[in-house]
């Protein structure tokens, strides 16, 4: 009982966002993509948890914060399986899968050192050209990279 209570103390969220089913290898990239390093809210990060659906998973809980959909959808790049739960009064008010946008601006660094985006003060821009696996192509130099290997700016 005691241990269960303890677990609940960490896990229960009155209000905020829970992002579940992130592949373990992508968890810390997801943290970076959301920009939660500098949040002063209560943030809980769990990793290498058992998941029946994807093997090992990671989970991120952020108290009292609701992210814009465009920010959440960034996660689809590295973790297409991720599920976003919006919590209000300890209850799941909304549950949805992240959706990959067609164009990704200003988030991913192009891994081609000769790309203009690595040499000018400008935003990067990628187009999604494949979904399984996720593949993105640089709008400028046309280099392609798999979503899971994308370098986050």
């Amino acid at each position, binding site marked *: 009982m005691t241990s269960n209570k303890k677990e609940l103390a960490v896990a229960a969220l009155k209000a905020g966002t829970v992002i579940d089913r992130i592949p373990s290898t992508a968890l810390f990239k997801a943290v970076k993509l959301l920009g939660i390093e500098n949040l002063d809210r209560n943030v809980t990060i769990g990793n290498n948890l058992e998941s029946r659906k994807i093997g090992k998973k990671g989970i991120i809980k952020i108290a009292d914060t609701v992210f814009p959909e465009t920010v959440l959808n960034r996660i689809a790049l590295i973790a297409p399986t991720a599920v976003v739960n919006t919590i209000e009064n300890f209850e799941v008010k909304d549950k949805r899968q992240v959706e990959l946008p067609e164009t990704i601006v200003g988030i991913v660094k192009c891994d*081609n050192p*000769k*790309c*203009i*985006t690595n*040499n*000018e*003060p*400008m935003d990067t821009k990628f187009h999604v050209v494949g979904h399984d696996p996720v593949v993105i192509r*640089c*709008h*400028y*130099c*046309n*280099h*392609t990279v798999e979503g899971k290997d994308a370098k986050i700016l």
Partner: protein
Amino acid sequence: MTSKSLVSISDIDKEEMLHLLELSRYFEENPNSKILDGRVVATLFFEPSTRTRLSFETAVNRLGGRVIGFSDANSTSTSKGETLKDTIKMVSNYVDLIVMRHHLEGAARYATEVTSKPIINAGDGANQHPSQTMLDLYSIYKTQGTLENLTITMVGDLKYGRTVHSLLMAMRYFNPTFNFIACDELQMPAEYKKFCIDNGIRFNESTDFSADVINSSDIIYMTRVQRERFTDIMEYERVKDLYRLHNSMLDNSKPTLKILHPLPRVNEIDQDVDDNPKAYYFQQAGNGLFARQAIITRALGIDPLAK
């Protein structure tokens, strides 16, 4: 879009491609005119390329336009740390059209986003060089009378060869059959083979530059095999002569066969081929003038065929 920039050959569809070929033919018949009278074109060569620059500047001059620009970024504010954006914005105040070459990939695409003046990409690193593709297409069209249903053999460096990749993509509208002839190190990359499969384009791949391949070809597109592409110099020494074309290899080829090469050539085409009427690489370079006249007038929204 008022701007008629040309950054990549994939920016234009079949109809526009064919129209550019008709325009090229028109300019071959009428190379000198005054249709660019009063227009100023900038040729910004952040990276030197004498051949391409002279060809573009000749194209403007023969159409009665004026040219400003530079042939080496060291003589510009770029060497003082000015961004590409600032250089393009500054030059845009002065001219009607910018032709640019840059060592960084994607530079021309970015330039189109910071100015309303049309941009013609004259090469951005290993990325795109659409005027080369247009002159290749025009050379094929002119010598074969069509672009449809041709067998095109690409030989040499198919891995890094920007020109063969762009030509392959441009030919997707015209039901070609490709032969890719290269050593193991320099094979056509998987993404272009996938492009062929996705677009229903037939292709054969071989390391053997055989008589069968030569004799079935309408076009043989030769490219330079560069020593610096090889991690193993012994391997380079082994393969360098396997993809050399000699005149005697053409004995049983089609009478209409033409040999193309983007130039400069080193030794992949023997000098003894030069006098064969099937050798077309020097005329091909000459066609660059007409193809570039077509691209320039399109960019400026001038169409001598519309009258």
